[in-house]
């Protein structure tokens, strides 16, 4: 039981996919301008990593080693298409899907998904693989929401579109909305994380 618990907790703290393993940065930074987009993106990634880890784990004994990357990509691409179609189907999420534009499609090449399948799902039973995938998605989503919180608060003075700082006469800082600040904020998040957990510091 404790092993299962570790499978779930490790990706969220000690082995966080973004701050420690540096996976999945590609699609993560661009969607952190607003909390709403970041939330939808995190949920999509959680679903995709979880279920594709499960499927690949079920298939792990039948996939020939030589072509495994293509097989994995097909499984992941199928899941992403499903998520994309679901997002497009509802009015509330359609606008967000449009706003996230290519980044939903880019979940396919999100290194977290492929990385977890390669590193974990291909060598483990389906249930731990599912949990590992979900937990990695959560670890990813957590960082995404932290970065999006600061960017939306400082950039436009709102949270989830509700005015917070603007009520006190704050004018949005345009620089925070631009891409480079996402990287700098993420750098600071890593700094804080590693200052708290000294084991993670690089020599």
């Amino acid at each position, binding site marked *: 039981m404790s092993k299962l618990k570790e499978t779930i907790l490790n990706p969220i703290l000690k082995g966080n996919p973004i*701050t420690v393993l*540096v*996976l*999945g*940065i*590609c*699609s*993560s*930074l*661009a969607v952190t301008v607003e909390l709403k987009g970041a939330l939808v993106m995190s949920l999509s990634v959680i679903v995709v990593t979880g279920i594709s880890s499960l499927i690949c784990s079920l298939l792990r004994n039948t996939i020939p080693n030589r*072509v495994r*990357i*293509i097989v994995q*990509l*097909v499984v992941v*691409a*199928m899941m*992403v*298409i499903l998520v*994309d*179609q679901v997002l497009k189907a509802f009015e509330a999420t359609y606008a967000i899907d449009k706003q996230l*534009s*290519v980044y939903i*499609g*880019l979940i*396919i*090449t*999100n*290194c977290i998904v*492929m990385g977890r399948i390669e590193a974990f799902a291909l060598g483990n039973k389906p249930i731990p693989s599912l949990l590992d995938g979900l937990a990695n998605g959560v670890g990813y989503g957590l960082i995404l929401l932290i970065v999006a919180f600061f960017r939306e608060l400082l950039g436009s003075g709102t949270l989830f579109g509700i005015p917070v700082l603007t009520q006190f006469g704050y004018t949005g800082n345009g620089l925070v909305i*631009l*891409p*480079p*600040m*996402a*990287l*700098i904020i*993420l*750098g*600071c998040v*890593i*700094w*804080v*994380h*590693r*200052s708290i957990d*000294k084991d993670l*510091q*690089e*020599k």
Partner: protein
Amino acid sequence: MENLSLFIKSMFVDNMIFAYFLGMCSYLAVSKNVKTANGLGLAVIFVIACTLPINYLLNTYVLKPGALAWAGLPDVNLGFLSYIIFIAVIAAFTQLVEMIVEKYLPALYSSLGIYLPLIAVNCAILGASLFMQQRDFVSLGQAEVYALGSGIGWYIAIVALAAIREKLAYSNIPAGLKGTGIAFITVGLMGIAFMMFMGISL
């Protein structure tokens, strides 16, 4: 002239790394020294320049709404299949390149070998194909110019970061920021520098 402006724009203004964060994972992982960064950058230019035209043709003649008019099926829209088709083309192509390089250019393979499979999951490649679909390029030539521009933009970005990181090894960085943390902040500052290109209109 229009193509030249598209080329410059996709290389600097819409730089894959600094404007869209595409290909970040391998960008950060493989930028520790200039030599390997150079190899990966060239491989990305090559793969992007070869797969994007293929995807452009597939998009125009198979996937786009009304694209199947030549087959007598003007109402069919296969757009929802584009992710899977694009990634299949890219993955198959990288696997093919890997096999060819392994067979005929063993020296190059040993220096580049591990990065080739990585390219299949490089977001910059799939991202370029998806942007191509969004922007609706009018001709194959235009798509190719865009592919080359964004590939070279990615190459410039990775070589520049690798050069900076080689020098960073000699500086005194706070313990928590060492490695990944400072790399992110460096990329952020480089991104701010690249933002000046936004003012250019061609």
